[in-house]
């Protein structure tokens, strides 16, 4: 028997059924690409779809305005909304790396941190915080204020994160599966520890304070984001909406297919002409860019960053937490990670009155979902290959052979 250890394909052969059911089956399998919900949606005309999307966007955008009439605690819940927006963006970014390209990245929060710190340092807040720490008498002169070109720092922060993605990715992406996960875990910690120890740049464990809030100042239009939650939420919503449009295009393009192919079988993908290393780097860099956006907005909203927030298990933005969001919601789809992020952010808030036990309950809820729906709630038909345990001896053999020339 030649080695046929490939996972058993299920027989389809000649299943009985009317032509209609055959058609339905065929259609269903192509269109569960995004999420089961999008099936009918995709059949409607483009105009209706755009209109529906726009309507949905407006409804979501109106949520913070409706909060006061819904809950007495509207200020608190609107801050939860911002947190949710940040988490959704992170989850949709990590989804590219883990869900689409199948690269198990356990250090994703590093790029969130790189974005936040880049902005904090560029804006002069780090300099101010250092001066304050050193009891510099001129400290008041150093308080950073928002200026128009700070929007530019958003983009610079993004560029730095992309660069970080490439720098971390280039040496590590030759690794596979578990090894990649361990190395990215290490990189994630390295970023945090560097932020903790590079006192002169990052102000170390004291953190950077006085990071300016964004503002809009175009001609007659003046608006300071300040400590309000709503503008951050709207900014996040805009970025998320744009990112979803991009994701759908990527998904449908050769790039999305190449990522999927790499995830399914890297050797076969290369044999079909997929430039695997380049494509994996691209996924890493795109993921980093999205995370850095989230990081910059986070830093400008809370006006403070410190290494403590970028830990693996941070209950909102830790690498593991973000991974939990996409695993829970359903990897590879777009609606899945959004739902996952919503649950991961929302559930602990609901259980807040239980006090310390809330994380325990949350953990149990996760376990239950994973038992009932191991592929996630809104499963994309593509599970991440890295998280399923089917063996591929042929592939591991290939590595060993290469190493023992």
């Amino acid at each position, binding site marked *: 028997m030649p080695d*046929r250890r490939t996972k058993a*394909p299920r027989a389809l052969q000649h299943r009985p059924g009317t032509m209609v059911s055959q058609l339905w089956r065929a259609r269903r399998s192509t269109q569960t690409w995004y999420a089961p919900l999008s099936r009918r949606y995709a059949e409607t005309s483009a105009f209706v779809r755009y209109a529906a999307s726009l309507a949905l966007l407006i409804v979501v955008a109106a949520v913070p305005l409706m909060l006061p009439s819904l809950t007495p605690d509207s200020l608190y819940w609107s801050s939860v909304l911002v947190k949710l927006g940040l988490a959704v963006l992170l989850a949709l970014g990590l989804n590219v790396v883990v869900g689409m390209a199948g690269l198990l990245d356990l250090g994703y929060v590093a790029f969130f941190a790189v974005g936040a710190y880049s902005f904090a340092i560029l804006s002069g807040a780090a300099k101010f915080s250092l001066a304050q720490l050193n009891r510099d008498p001129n400290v008041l002169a150093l308080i950073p204020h928002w200026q128009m070109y700070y929007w530019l720092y958003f983009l610079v922060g993004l560029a730095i994160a992309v660069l970080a993605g490439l720098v971390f990715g280039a040496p590590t992406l030759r690794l596979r599966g578990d090894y990649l996960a361990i190395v990215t875990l290490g990189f994630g910690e390295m970023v945090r520890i560097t932020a903790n120890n590079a006192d002169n740049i990052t102000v170390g464990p004291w953190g950077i304070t006085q990071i300016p809030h964004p503002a809009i100042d175009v001609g007659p239009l003046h608006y300071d984001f300040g400590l309000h939650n709503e503008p951050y939420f709207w900014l996040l919503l805009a970025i998320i909406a744009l990112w979803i449009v991009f994701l759908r295009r990527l998904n449908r393009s050769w790039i999305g297919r190449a990522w999927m192919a790499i995830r399914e079988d890297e050797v076969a993908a290369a044999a*079909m002409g*997929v430039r695997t290393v380049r494509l994996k780097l691209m996924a890493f860099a795109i993921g980093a860019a999205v995370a850095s956006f989230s990081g910059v907005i986070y830093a400008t909203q809370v006006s403070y960053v410190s290494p403590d927030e970028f830990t693996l298990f941070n209950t909102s933005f830790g690498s593991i937490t973000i991974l939990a969001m996409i695993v829970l919601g359903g990897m590879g789809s777009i609606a899945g990670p959004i739902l996952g992020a919503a649950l991961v952010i929302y559930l602990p808030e609901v259980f807040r009155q239980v006090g310390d036990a809330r994380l325990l309950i949350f953990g149990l809820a996760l376990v239950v979902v994973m038992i009932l729906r191991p592929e996630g709630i809104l499963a994309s038909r593509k599970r991440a290959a890295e998280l399923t345990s089917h063996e591929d001896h042929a592939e591991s053999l290939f590595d060993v052979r290469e190493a023992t020339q």
Partner: protein
Amino acid sequence: MTVVLQTTDLSKSFGGVAALSQVDLSIGEGEIFSVIGPNGAGKTTLFNLITGIFPPSGGRITFGGDDLLRTSRYFRVSMPLGLRRRRTVHEVTRLGIARTFQNIRLFPEMTALENVMVGIDAHSRTSLAATLLATGSYRRELRETKSRALELLDFAGIRRYAGELSKNLAYGDQRRVEVARALGTAPKLLLLDEPAAGMNPAEEAVLMQLIQKVRGSGVTILLIEHDMKVVMGISDRIAVLDFGVKIGEGSAREVQNNPDVIKAYLGSGTSNLKARSSTPESKSAAELTTPLLEVEDLHVNYGVIEAVKGVSLRVQSGEIVALIGSNGAGKSTILKTISGLQAPRRGTISLEGRPIQRLPPHRTVRLGIGHAPEGRRILSRMTLLENLQLAYREASKSRPGVRGEQEAVARVYELFPVLKDRARQPSGSLSGGQQQMLAIGRALIAQPRLLMLDEPSMGLAPMMVDRIFEIIHSINQQGTTILLVEQNAQMALLVSARAYVLESGRIVVTDESTKLLGNDLVRRAYLGEALEGANGASA
């Protein structure tokens, strides 16, 4: 005739084993060129070298005048592995060499259409920015890719499955998707690695038509295939590999009549081993008791592929029983199922009357079944001694009466003296023959009641093959029952008392080995029907 692909002195060794040595091939434009050879002959290695999956140890490959193995672009020095500039896998594909895989490597969670689109994407010209902005060229390319993919599926005759996840397709259809996907990369040369493996005759016929059709569309084809009906039916020329060496080349008829080829397939039987007349005294005694191993109506599936289709066999205590048959006949699967590495779909396996078909491998080992698997599967980073010790610990558990560890190891060294000097060596650095000895030694370290050897001669030089068979013989003489799977039919029949001949998962003949030695059915099971005209040339 223009030469499309040429290999010169192409060699490759893995560890101590030469998988391919100095192979010269020259494939002309528009040909269907087949490479055949017994298991372990180096056929798939040849494909992996051509497509850049492994770097060769020596030799050259040129494709349409293009050297596929340039080393550094700037220096004529051998660079460290990571920096070497041989053509990478995807570059080779983009140059116009596409392939399929022996064990189907479609992207299982993608539809047939998407699989083929990945192939076509190799020539995509859309940038990331154009994709994000959904420019006109992005949309146009998307449309074109899709319609081209549908065309190719149509060409392969499976357009109706375009929207089906490839993992849900029938085996033969999966093969055809793989061909369509490879064609998507617009190859000049298509490498097909055992496309007919696991196919039924009807599927085979469709496949042969498809291959002809592909050639008709101007693609040159290099084919590896075990199914002689397919090979003899469509090849223009055939090259035969054995132990990594090209031993013959020519048309179907020339190859079938080549004595070296026949010898390679059936084995020479040149050893000092004399044909054993089955030992009647032990046999008659054994028949009174329950057999040591009894397999009833065993069915094993790999997904949709039915690898074993109702096999029944029995092994009496003290016997050597051989399972012979060509690649893919289901021999290794039977052994794996007995030792618990593979679950049967149906049927029973009993060891001295006790059903064991549901037991995991570590339990069957403790019942006294030793398995030296195909490809040795030694733990290459552990030392030789560690391999033996590990095997001993597990296999001797809850088995009173098994000799102590020291003694057991000493016993293995006694059988294989060469191993003793290498006890502290990482076993991956051993030569192929030594690794095989270790695999056998490991399987018998705790005095198994049944020793199962899977292709003990695979990949070994002829002299080493003789040596291994002598040892198998002497192990048996000392009272160990042996179930032997072997491609080298001649050798297996010489050493065994009885044999079962398998073809496509079924037992076609069973008899005393001496009687099978000259049996035509055996030859047919290996070289196919078409050989019948070549009887006179057989050894």
